[in-house]
């Protein structure tokens, strides 16, 4: 087990370098001069432009810029954005908010997705099953911004149940609505995955055996059916955590959540290489770690799987 984890962690090293190099190159290739853009349409003073280029290493060739950035990372110096603020400070502000939001979304989609999917799977073809399947299809069909604006308008503006926007230092309750919107699409997927998986497991040999042994139905469906059906669902949820964090851009915009999406979007617009690469690198690491956790969870769900 320890060896396995160690090996997986080592594998992240090349991924880290590859991802940072690739993203740095992409930002570098963005059209336009970010320093000139700082001055807008007004004349840029040559002295100021030269000074700023030097300050952000933009006068160096690409590979030198990249190596300087990597060198900084090893001393925990992620560079500065054009506003003069250390990138690491901005990461420290934005990530906790987005992690909170993503976890809430994940919890909502996991709890409701699995519960509804489980019930639908048990009564395949029934009224509940058909209704839930239809509704989940509707959710999948609606773009997230439509869902977000509608929810914001109804709950926030029209009925006044919650504040339409979130703002800084959000509490759990404040993030409930954005979390539900963010998790809605995955909720539908989780529901359908669970439902199919459960329906399939119901006719599996080990389930029939368990029933034949005389186990009560509650024990059969929870331990023998549900636990076995969860493997594809857990895989999906693990991969989804990364997607939720990186994909929170639209939801964060609608509900004015000062998270990673906003940070990344503004950094891309301003061609701030160090900020973009730092944010994406952390997202890549989160994704890799989430996948590792998923793989380890397989062993918990299915005793036949062992890691050596």
């Amino acid at each position: 087990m320890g060896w396995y984890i160690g090996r997986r962690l080592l594998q992240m090293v090349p991924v880290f370098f590859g991802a940072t190099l690739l993203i740095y190159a992409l930002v570098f290739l963005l059209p336009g001069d970010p320093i000139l853009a700082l001055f807008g349409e007004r004349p840029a003073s040559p002295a100021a432009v030269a000074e700023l280029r030097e300050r952000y290493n933009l006068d160096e060739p690409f590979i030198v810029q990249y190596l300087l950035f990597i060198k900084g990372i090893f001393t925990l110096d992620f560079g500065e954005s054009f506003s003069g603020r250390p990138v690491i400070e901005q990461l420290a502000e934005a990530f906790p908010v987005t992690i909170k939001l993503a976890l809430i979304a994940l919890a909502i989609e996991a709890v409701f997705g699995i519960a509804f999917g489980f019930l639908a799977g048990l009564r395949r073809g029934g009224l509940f099953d058909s209704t839930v399947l239809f509704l989940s299809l509707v959710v999948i069909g609606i773009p997230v911004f439509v869902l977000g604006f509608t929810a914001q308008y109804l709950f926030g503006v029209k009925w006044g149940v919650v504040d339409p926007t979130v703002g800084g230092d959000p509490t759990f309750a404040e993030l409930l609505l954005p979390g539900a919107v963010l998790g809605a699409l995955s909720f539908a997927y989780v529901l359908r995955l669970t439902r199919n998986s459960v329906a399939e497991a119901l006719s599996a040999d080990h389930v029939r055996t368990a029933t034949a042994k005389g186990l009560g139905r509650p024990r059969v469906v929870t331990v023998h059916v549900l636990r076995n059906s969860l493997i594809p669902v857990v895989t999906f949820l693990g991969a989804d955590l990364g997607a939720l964090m990186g994909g929170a851009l639209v939801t964060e915009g609608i509900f004015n959540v000062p998270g990673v999406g906003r940070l990344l979007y503004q950094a891309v617009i301003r061609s701030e290489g160090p900020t973009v690469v730092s944010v994406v690198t952390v997202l890549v690491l989160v994704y890799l770690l989430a996948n590792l956790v998923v793989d380890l969870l397989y062993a918990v769900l299915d005793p036949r799987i062992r890691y050596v």
Partner: protein
Amino acid sequence: MSSFEKDDEQSGSRRVGLVSRGPVITRRAGLAGLLGAAAVTTLAACGGSEEEGSGGTEGGGSGGDVIANGTEPQNPLVPTSTNEVGGGRLLDSLWAGLVYYQADGSPQNDVAESIESADAQNYTITIKPDQTFSDGTPVTAQSFVDAWNYGALGTNAQLSSYFFEPIQGFEDVQAEPPVAQTMSGLQVVDDTTFTVALTQPESDFPLRLGYSAFYPLPASAFDDMAAFGESPIGNGPYKLAAPDAWQHNVRIDFVPNETYTGPRQAQNDSLAFVFYETYDAAYADLQSGNLDVIDNIPPSALATFQDDLGERAVNQPAAVFQSFTIPQNLPHFSGEEGKLRRQAISHAIDRAQVCETVFQDTRTPAKDFTSPVIDGYSETVPGSEVLAYDPEEAKRLWAEADAISPYTGTFTIAYNSDGGHQEWVDATAAYIRQTLGIQAEGAPYPTFAALRTDVTNRTITGAFRTGWQADYPGLYNFLAPIYATGAGSNDGDYSNPEFDALLNQAAAQTDAAASNELLQQAQTILFEDLPAIPLWYSNVTGGSSEAASDVQFGWNSVPLYYQITKS
């Protein structure tokens, strides 16, 4: 700089339209020395009474806690390094300059006692005694001179350094490396007096002094400018509620500054700016009463906001001029042929129709090259008939040009597609196509930076969208920086000696009316040459909550926050 032409800005980011709050006063060439009539200017307009526009209460009325929308400042809160509206609105509340602008754009003295000049070139500025920063240290002549020198020094890389270009010695501090640390044109006489020597007459120099680049700095700022930019100390109507009141990307909280004795007394108990990424979110907050004033309506609500807000809706022309520039070196667009083609294109566009259908009447069709909110504006400048929609005349002029040299190729209008410009560019190109029977289309650039790079390097191969948001309310500010020969923002490389001469004469006038008269004559030349095709003025669209009252928008489309009260 984010200038935002605010409508562009869909995310609090720099979605700059082409318009930005930024350095402005440049006339590298063209405005050669001139010795205007040597009259004494005492900027009578600036001698305003102290209590005007204020209830007279010292530091803070009982007007409640006002919440306004804002965007995360893109730069530290240092006056000379801020050139975008997100930081600018904060600076204007935290600082008091020598003059300030009333809602109609007319200047009034704030910290200045008097600004005098005999020749529009050498100014003696006297400030009121006993002014202090919010930390109790005195505001002296030195505070201004040091701040301006800091802003001008090339190695400090301040985004607004160009504001100091007219001052003598600017070239020395901008040299690489600088050959001087301070500008020779600034001299401190005593605690309350300093002199400014310009390189040439600039009659509207006093008018510019209300812009944030000219704010003073306390001595403590120079010890650690980075720390100061995080937690600034000004001399204006407000101060930070706490040293760490700026919560990045979230909000910033101000309380009235009780040491401020000037005319812009805060009428509310506190003022907070909540930073939004989108105006949609801000508008939802306004509707639910969580926000008291919004200074831009999102596109999604433009069709409904006047009904939603009723009398609380604001939709009025602003000091933002929109156009597209046709470079002088574009084939078929120079000389006599070029004049005809430019006029034909201008006649081919139905501006009123585009304003109505594309912008839901949140633009006002242009009648000149400036803005209706500027003193001296006229709807009937001779030559402005060229802006009328007249397809027949357009066809006739185009045919006349074709007789000189037949037109080939596609007429393109470049724009940045991250700023919501596609609709109007497409509509405008369609008018040109249909009226003149030529190929015309939009040429999208992915980002503002990409467009600017091609424009700055003169590698652009067609017309391109341009806009201008004034930094100070003067006609001259709309003309000289863009159309004077060699001016810093003259992206089309327009040059007309007659036009330059009129600008120079206007700059040397000490009487505002006489100066404006000359500038209108200069505009007549522009209507003839059409270096850019005027399109429309952006309106300021905004509104306020039911709880807020005394909401008034300033000439620069930013609400006068200090006046707002809340029940």
